[in-house]
């Protein structure tokens, strides 16, 4: 188990490194000169001054050297300074945005997992019943509706028309912080974030459980006189969860994308909102920093998924 975790951790680090190279290169390939971000457009610099600035920022060195320099600093926690907010270091800027994003994603995923798995179990156990058909239609709708549509529709109905939920941000401006207020702001974006994932998890859980219910060991459990409830919950569901855990792990990466979008629709002060504004401002250090932190988070989550999987399936532990 320890070697298993160590190996996954090593793979994760390599992936993170690869991600940083990729982001670095992509940003440098993007149109526009990174130096532009440092210059006040209304006060053009002379060619000499420009070259001096370039040299001071290290932007005249070859790309690999620039990358290594950036990496060395990054390893010490120095992700540079925001080019748009003068003198603001990137790391604290990014770190303060992690909390809200984790809250939103965790809430969204928790809703998706609980709803998806219970609906999947219900559908499989009551196969072809009205409940199964209803849930399957719902899931199909959930999978095929694009996030921008559900986000805008949700916003329109629940906050504009019905007034049940605030239309954005994390807390009521000006009010003192309170948990109910936070939850009130959290529900709508979290539910919208969860829809697609819940639908996908439900479909997987249903298919997986139906397959497991046909397995010989389920028949063995019945032959032992295990109560039907425990046949499902103890003998079938635990096996059926295996592929679903993998799915959940891999949807988390996708959920990050969804969260970025939902944050910008709901003005949720997380990494997504930061990233979107940094991209439009061409604030390269912030883009790099935010991407890396998001990437690291996804890798950690995948590691946790693998460990959960190994804990549920004894066959993984030995091999």
């Amino acid at each position, binding site marked *: 188990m320890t070697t298993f975790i160590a190996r996954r951790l090593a793979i994760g680090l390599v992936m993170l490194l690869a991600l940083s190279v990729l982001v670095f290169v992509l940003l440098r390939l993007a149109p526009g000169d990174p130096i532009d971000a440092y210059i006040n457009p209304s006060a053009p610099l002379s060619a000499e001054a420009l070259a001096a600035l370039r040299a001071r920022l290290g932007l005249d060195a070859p790309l690999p050297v620039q990358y290594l320099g950036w990496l060395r600093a990054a390893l010490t926690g120095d992700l540079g300074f925001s080019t748009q907010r003068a003198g603001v270091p990137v790391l604290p800027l990014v770190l303060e945005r992690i909390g809200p994003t984790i809250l939103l994603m965790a809430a969204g995923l928790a809703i998706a997992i609980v709803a998806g798995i219970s609906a999947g179990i219900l559908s499989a156990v009551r196969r072809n019943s009205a409940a199964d058909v209803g849930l399957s239609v719902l899931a199909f709708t959930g999978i095929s509706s694009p996030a921008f549509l559900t986000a805008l529709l949700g916003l329109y109905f629940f906050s504009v028309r019905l007034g049940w939920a605030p239309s954005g941000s994390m807390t009521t401006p000006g009010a003192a912080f309170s948990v109910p207020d936070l939850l009130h702001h959290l529900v709508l974006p979290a539910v919208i974030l969860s829809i697609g994932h819940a639908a996908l998890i439900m479909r997987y859980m249903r298919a997986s459980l139906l397959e497991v219910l046909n*397995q*010989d*060991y389920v*028949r*063995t*459990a*019945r*032959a*032992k*006189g*295990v*109560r*039907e409830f425990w046949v499902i919950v103890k*003998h079938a569901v*635990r*096996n059926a969860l295996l592929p679903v855990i993998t799915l959940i792990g891999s949807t988390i990466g996708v959920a990050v994308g969804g969260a970025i979008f939902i944050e910008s629709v709901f003005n949720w002060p997380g990494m997504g909102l930061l990233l979107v504004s940094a991209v439009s401002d061409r604030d390269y250090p912030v883009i790099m920093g935010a991407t890396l932190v998001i990437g690291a988070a996804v890798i950690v989550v995948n590691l946790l998924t693998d460990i959960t999987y190994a804990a*549920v*399936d*004894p*066959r993984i532990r*030995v091999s």
Partner: protein
Amino acid sequence: MNAPVLDIRDLRTVFRVGGRELTAVADLDLSIAPGETVALVGESGSGKSVTSLSVMGLLPRKVGRIDNGTIAFRGKSGAARDLVGMTPEALRQLRGNDMAMVFQEPMTSLNPVYTVGEQIAEPMRIHLGRSRAQAAAAAVQLLADVGIPDPARRARQFPHELSGGMRQRATIAMALACDPKLLIADEPTTALDVTIQAQILDLLAKLQAERGMAMLFVTHNLGVVAEIADRVAVMYAGRIVETGTVDEVFDHPRHPYTQGLLRSVPRLGQATALKRAGTPLPTIAGAVPSLANLPRGCAFAPRCPYAIDACTVAVPPLADTGGGHGSRCIRWPEI
């Protein structure tokens, strides 16, 4: 003779397939005394497993059901009760406790995510109210009883860490956990290689003798029947076509199907001799008819060398040929 543990009368089990009802088992009578082993033989699809599942109350729900007949079962209470029409809950309480089943596939019959010990302990916790610790200790003892070396360590292992033969021993231990009156073994050795097969057969015979259980042994291997069973029932297309003691049926088969089966069994040395001569083993010509399309009268008629017009008029009754030997062939005196 002792009062039978299992006494099936006139059983008919049907399946609903695509809006049609197929009769998988019909007119089946079968009785097993305490300590007795009855073998159920026949080609694939003849209804052996369906018969077993009918007794256990494990027919696939909504698809299969018992349409007719009685299954009198004398469990631990000592009173005979009809399993047909019993509530699912009453049947569940008998399963794994008064009657137990061993299945064909040791590789897939154990749950991959629980230890072998936990799975053997489970029926004792459900039916006998044993505590976790008591049941775990009993499970280790059972593993020792079925001949698994180092049982305490094996009990803590997961199924994938055991060989096929060992897993089958473990499923036998699981079936015997509550000391059932009836053990149904559905092809318990088919998936194993020959030397392991012999060991498992010996083990089953030994445990059965020790515990005085009744055993229904399903197989399509006549060599296995000769080794383990007292009586045999030969099934064809859902019906028992011949039944009697193993000696009687093997020495004087009174049904052309049984004769054909016996002829296709390689005798010692015969198989190699035939192989050397390049001739295939004799088999029964023709194929098992599909249940959806059974011929009128004797279902074996299309493949039977003795068939005459009279055979296709009605299903032949199970005729008593003397000494508890029965044959569902109208021409039994001639063959």
